[in-house]
């Protein structure tokens, strides 16, 4: 569906996006993660044709970006903004009209969307009278009302409470089920892991990890160990490659930079009489994110 090939974008001397490639297919969800300023929003702006890449190409179903193609995309920008004096219906129909979508169909779909996202108020409620969370939901509806084939959500979870995050995850799952391709960015790895088929990690504009979530995790191996028992005398400084440790009753979880170091640590822990059991665990996406960032920092500091 969406094919992004070797795109690069520079702003003066700063390279915001550096030789980035990825693709998203019909019914697939891609989660893009990265630190602030990593180049996620710039990538989205290039897909939306707000910015032209200096190099590379972006195609949707084999077509270069044009108005017709852009009408098949729904976009929720990172910066939220709505016409506060309009009613929910006026707002949503205006955006449907801008996408060239049939207004009767949009009118019929609106109550269903409001119901699905539990938007408080009715169609005639003015936006300014809605809470921030509900305004955010209305903005999501404006980006979905024209039934896009590809949906791009820039930080959709920011500012939402846990209940609304769950609603949004359900919505993304429904879109995926209906064959819509979804790309979203987030800092919350748990949400990315829950809803994404693929992950793309960008660090300083460069792609650092890309692929199906399970493959990415497997690639990193089992870098965590769980040691059951009391280990008051064990300091992680004694274990090579240990990054961090946390208590998890009735034991300890220690994260390493590689599976090799994790296995060595188990051998070392066997010497402790208090050891009652142990397990090798796969890293979470959070662990992977931190690992990649730390590696990048090591490289950049020579």
């Amino acid at each position, binding site marked *: 569906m969406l094919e992004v090939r070797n795109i690069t974008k520079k702003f003066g001397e700063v390279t915001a996006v550096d030789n980035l490639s990825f693709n998203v297919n019909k019914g697939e969800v891609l989660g893009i993660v990265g630190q602030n300023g990593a180049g996620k929003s710039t990538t989205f702006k290039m897909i*939306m044709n*707000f910015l032209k890449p200096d190099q590379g190409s972006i195609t949707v179903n084999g077509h270069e970006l044009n108005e017709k193609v852009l009408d098949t995309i729904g*976009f929720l920008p990172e910066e939220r*903004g*709505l016409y506060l004096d309009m009613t929910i219906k006026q707002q949503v129909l205006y955006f449907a*009209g*801008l996408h060239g979508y049939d207004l009767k169909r949009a009118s019929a779909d609106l109550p269903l969307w409001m119901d699905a996202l539990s938007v408080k108020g009715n169609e005639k409620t003015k936006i300014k009278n809605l809470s921030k969370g509900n305004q955010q939901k209305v903005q999501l509806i404006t980006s979905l009302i024209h039934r896009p084939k590809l949906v791009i959500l820039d930080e959709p979870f920011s500012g939402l409470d846990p209940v609304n995050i769950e609603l949004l995850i359900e919505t993304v799952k429904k879109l995926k089920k209906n064959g819509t391709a979804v790309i979203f960015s987030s800092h919350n790895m748990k949400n990315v892991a829950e809803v994404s088929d693929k992950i793309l990690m960008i660090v300083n504009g460069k792609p650092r990890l890309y692929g199906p979530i399970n493959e990415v995790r497997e690639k990193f191996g089992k870098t965590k160990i769980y040691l059951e028992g009391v280990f008051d005398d064990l300091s992680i400084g004694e274990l090579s490659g240990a990054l961090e440790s946390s208590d998890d009753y009735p034991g300890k979880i220690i994260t390493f930079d590689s599976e090799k170091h994790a296995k060595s640590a188990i051998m070392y822990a066997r010497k402790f009489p208090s050891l009652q059991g142990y397990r090798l665990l796969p890293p979470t996406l959070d662990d992977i994110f931190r690992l990649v960032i730390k590696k990048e920092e090591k490289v950049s500091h020579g």
Partner: protein
Amino acid sequence: MGKILSVAKMVFKKRSLSPTYYWMILAPIVVAIIGICFAKYMQHQSTSERPIIAVVADNNIKKALESKKSTSYQVNKKINTNDSKRLKMYLADGVIDGILYVNKDISKITYKYNANSEASLPINALKNDLASLRSQMIAANYGISAREWMNLNKLPTIKRKILNKEASIELNNSETAQNFSEAVVIVAFFFLTSYISITGAELGNEKGNHLIEGVLAAISPKKHFAGKMLGIGFLVILQLLIYSVIAAFSYIILKHTKYHNWFNLTKYLQHIDTTYVLIVTMLTLFSLAAYIFLSACFASFVSRSEDISQATTSVASIMMIPYFLSFLTQNSPNMGIAKALSYLPFMSQGIMPVRLAQGAASYQSGWVSVLISMIGAVIMYFIAEYVYEKNVFSYNSDAPLRVIFNKVLHR
């Protein structure tokens, strides 16, 4: 076209349903009505405040002052006494507002008045009238009759003729045209100020409130800009329609009331030349378009909603130049700078109407100015569209003017 219309309809609907828009339309009319009523009130007041005076002087002088029928004072004909005590009593009782003492050769004049009287002081009018009487008396001493004296003082009439008479305004109508041009310049000023702020708000708010990314995900910047301008165009048309209806309605009502004479409407309208009105109207509309596009340029550099006023004020300042120049042109319509500026877009709407009204420019020149103004507005549209497209996504912590200066200096 559908998307452009969607944006245009939204702009039109939002603004035309807002009470602010109607206040903007009606404010100049309300101001004009208040102005007319105030002028009439002042005129009425000055009539009622005309002092009634008693004249203590030679009979000839007394009669001459009575026959002047001055608007600044009224001679009480019934009081026919030189008794100082009685006159003072009349003055104290408010029967009269002042006593004028004049000696035989009008060399010694005194005006005694009651300080508590609400009537105005007619000193200047009395000074003029008595000076005229004195010169008449001196002339009589030299054997010049009253008729001869009047002939001596009569101002000569100068018939005005200009070379390109066929193509310019009828000079008999010149005064009417000048009044009309002054009114148009003032109304155009109101028009321009309002639409500059509407344009600034329409483009600047969406950018300042970060709405623009959501909107431009659905429509290209060029089409969005076109839609905004079209919507503002619809508002201008609605305003013209409302003004036309108000004008027609007022004319019909005034024609059938005693207030008709207040304005000398029929006489005034007879003197208005259609070609003149057409040129002035077209110049105003094209300059309005050019200023709207200029305002759009400035609004494209807005990064925060609170900066919109700075952007629009800058345009309004530029607009003040032709407004003030139009008043200067009234005295020197053929001044080099006035001539040049009367053909320059952004300036011509304030200056060419005045030059036409004075007969200093021909209708051909007027039409040339209209053509240049139209071309200027079209060019300005494309410049504004380009500037909007290039800057709609660029945000800057600096104020719009600084951003513009930086862009220009680093080009």
